[in-house]
């Protein structure tokens, strides 16, 4: 039963991920990306971590995608715009980077033995457990990430202000 659900979610996720790249219309790509992220959230539920699933929907599907759409709809993405933003001579750089990244991903995926992955023992992961772990064991990384986010936010504000002035 669980395997069946996993297969459904996984196949929809893969197909929608392909759609993100293959659709010509950026708004439809965004829609496909949304579907893909929702499927990943469903897989999290199957892995007995409802908290991660809900946060995935909340943060990625709910907030990040709205901002994506906002940008996509306000910017008139045409060929000319794209070339001004992303000139053809830089595109070779992109073509060079993609194989490198692909290779790295393959290396990581093939190099990992997926032992001990999968649903954790003892049922669902409780929110309390995650919270306790974040604030004791992983306190330093947690704080570093929050400072990083703050820096990114300040940076975004500075950049936006510069363009206004």
């Amino acid at each position, binding site marked *: 039963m669980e395997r069946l659900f996993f297969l459904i979610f996984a196949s929809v996720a893969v197909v929608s991920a392909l759609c993100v790249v293959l659709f010509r*219309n950026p*708004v*439809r790509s965004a*829609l496909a990306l*949304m579907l893909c992220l929702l499927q990943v959230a469903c897989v999290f539920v199957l892995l007995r971590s*409802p*908290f991660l699933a*809900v*946060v995935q*929907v*909340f943060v990625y*599907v*709910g*907030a990040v*995608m*709205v*901002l994506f*759409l*906002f940008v996509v*709809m*306000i910017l008139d993405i045409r060929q000319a715009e794209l070339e001004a933003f992303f000139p053809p001579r830089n595109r070779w750089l992109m073509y060079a980077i993609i194989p490198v990244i692909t290779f790295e991903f393959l290396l990581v995926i093939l190099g990992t033995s997926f032992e001990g992955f999968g649903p954790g023992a003892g049922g*669902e992961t*409780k*929110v309390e457990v995650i919270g306790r772990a974040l604030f004791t064991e992983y306190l330093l990384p947690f704080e570093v990430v929050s400072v990083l986010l703050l820096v990114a936010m300040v940076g975004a504000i500075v950049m936006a202000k510069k363009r206004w002035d």
Partner: protein
Amino acid sequence: MLDSALILELAIMFIKVFVVGSVLFALPIPLTWLERKVAGHIQVRLGPFRVGPHGVLQPLADMIKMLLKEDIVPEKADKWLFRLAPIMTLVPTFTVFVAIPFGDKVRIPFTGREVALYISDMNVAVLYILAISGLGIYGIIFGGWASNSKYALLGGLRSAAQMISYEVAMSFAVIGVVMLSNSLSLVEIVKSQSGGFLHWNFFYLPVGPLWFIIFIIAGFAETNRIPFDMPEDEGSLGAGYHVEYSGMRFAYYMLAEYVAMVTVSVLAVIFFFGGWNPPFNLPFHLTGETAMFVNGGWNAEFLNLLAAVIPLFWFAGKVAVFIYSFMWIRFTLPRYRYDQLMRIGWRVLIPLSMVNILVTGFMRI
């Protein structure tokens, strides 16, 4: 694999989903009538009066009208997205109710079976509700974009900005509630407020009322109702994101709006006003748990049933008060300007919530 217990479990689940779903589908019918009546009386006129006594059959007439209208899809619209968008708003607004508890567990008379008056008691129900209700915005954005009309697009974009801004304040208010109740499960949150109205989160002075005000303002903004109905500001946008919609697709948007209003009212009751808990302890101990243990005989079964039904009435009554005040406010206040709306969200509500989180934290230590 399929034994009778599992089938019974599934059947109960289906019945619950069916009941909740059909109540939600049917609820906008009396609500539209009520809204127009309230509007009429506030504006010193009668409101709908022609169809049926005091116009009670008006919503049915409207429904027939909606069903018979031509479903127009604009020539230059993105047809596929245009058709999909209303359903994208409708689905999340209904899905939210999976997590909402209407009452505690009750015993069905003469069977000894316990049935919970909610579909699912999730460990993370609060986050689930915030996450899913945030998805309703996509139908509005896509509807605005797919219509290929500038009014609709602007309405959709405004709504996107508005909902993002107020989702932050709403989430803060919910964090406040979680701090007060020490749980992310809605059933636990309601149970933590049992024992008279002084235990309700609203009366956790001084932070409770402030959390409630932040929550309800954000709730008004999230449901796109006056004074924050920017996305459909008819003075400057025609009708906003649904300007190109007609017939049943338009009705879907309206349906979603009404259900969202019910959702915010229900959440306000659960978070701040004790859910199905009565405001004071009744003298004859007819509250759920005490009567549950009385066994055997007609009398006891009847008492059990009564104990199960009375909390539902409390719940519905509290929700009704909120729905009425939604309508009341709609016809009392003017609409804010768009920049004022953004300023209230970012410069008033969010700093206020941050201070309030600190104060609540110190009070809860």
